[in-house]
């Protein structure tokens, strides 16, 4: 039988144990950012409120990116939104997860040929869970969240690490599509 004496564990193992304990808390208390980027956000109120009651999974809407764990990309992303989404994503505190709702985040969906809407979200920010559909049912949205919890449990939801490690690649893609990520114009003195 393996000894569980604390002193015999290496620093790495201790860290992993702590991380697993942290994962338990993280997956049971996922706070999502209240950012309705697109039309799939219309299925979120039923998910949040009485009909499906997201709070029983420990999830709740949060006001600011600093407090939130999940960035919910609800649907298509116009260029203008994508800039703000990246800015918001970088403000979130780690570990952070991204859930892409709707087919627009996967391949552009019905707006695949639009001049204003991007086609593939994971070129710009790493996505942990996709929920397909246009728009996905509330059940599908809830299922996506459960999938995310499973992914956290199995340590596969590490998009934030990917973003940190491959920051240059993501940045390059962002600049290629957006020109400048943080705009200076008359709206932003």
């Amino acid at each position, binding site marked *: 039988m393996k000894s569980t004496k604390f002193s015999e564990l290496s620093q790495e193992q201790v860290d992993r144990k702590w991380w697993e304990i942290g994962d338990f808390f993280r997956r049971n208390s996922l706070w999502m950012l209240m950012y309705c980027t697109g039309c799939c956000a219309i299925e979120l109120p039923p998910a949040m409120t009485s009909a499906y009651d997201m709070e029983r999974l420990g999830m709740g809407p949060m006001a600011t990116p600093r407090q939130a764990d999940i960035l919910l990309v609800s649907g298509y992303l116009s*260029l*203008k939104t994508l800039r703000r989404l990246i800015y918001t994503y970088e403000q979130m505190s780690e570990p952070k997860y991204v859930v892409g709702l709707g087919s627009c985040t*996967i391949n552009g969906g019905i707006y*695949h040929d639009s*001049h*204003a809407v991007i*086609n*593939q979200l994971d070129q710009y920010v790493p996505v942990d869970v996709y929920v397909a559909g246009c728009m996905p049912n509330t059940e599908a949205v809830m299922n996506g969240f459960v999938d995310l919890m499973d992914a956290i449990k199995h340590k596969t939801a590490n998009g934030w690490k990917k973003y940190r490690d491959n920051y240059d690649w993501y940045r390059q893609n962002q600049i290629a599509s957006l*020109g400048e990520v943080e705009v200076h114009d008359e709206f932003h003195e």
Partner: protein
Amino acid sequence: MMNSTNNALEVITLVESKYNVVKTEHISKYQVAFEVIREDIHSMLNFLKNSGWKQLSYLSAIDWPEEDKMELVYIVFNWDKGVHIQIRSKIDRENPEMDSILPIFPGCKYYEREAHEFFGIVFHGNPDSMKQLILEGWDDIPPLRKDFDPRAYSEAHFPQREYTETFIELNQQESKQEKRAARQAHIDEVRKGGKK
């Protein structure tokens, strides 16, 4: 309000008596369209506003590259009469310019700004009309012109998802019969109560 048919006809006689209309259309009992020359638009809108068409419902443009024209559309509405009036006028496409109707309908401010953004029409007298409204950092021709191709723009700017060949092959390998058999097996298993 039930006599709207008469209202529409009244409008036609009213306008035609006063202005030299290029073309009149009686679209439905609630809708009338006039095509006028560009110089008449201001006085006509003013006249209609004083006659009760107090609300500017819509302002936009249509691009006609074959004729090399840009067509401006003003839609005004009278809530008492219940008649929409379209006023259309064609202007030059290469150098589209128009005087703003801001003094007549203050509500046109953002419509004109948007028309500038999407068609490149310059409205003189509208202070903010040259600023960007909806797009941000736009670097191409105005997008609602007919010669703009959004697909080409999208392909140039946004990477498309590449579905790898293996993915497609895998699907092809799995024929429909196999799939059906697998599904049947699954159903049987569920019926037996083995798997959920």
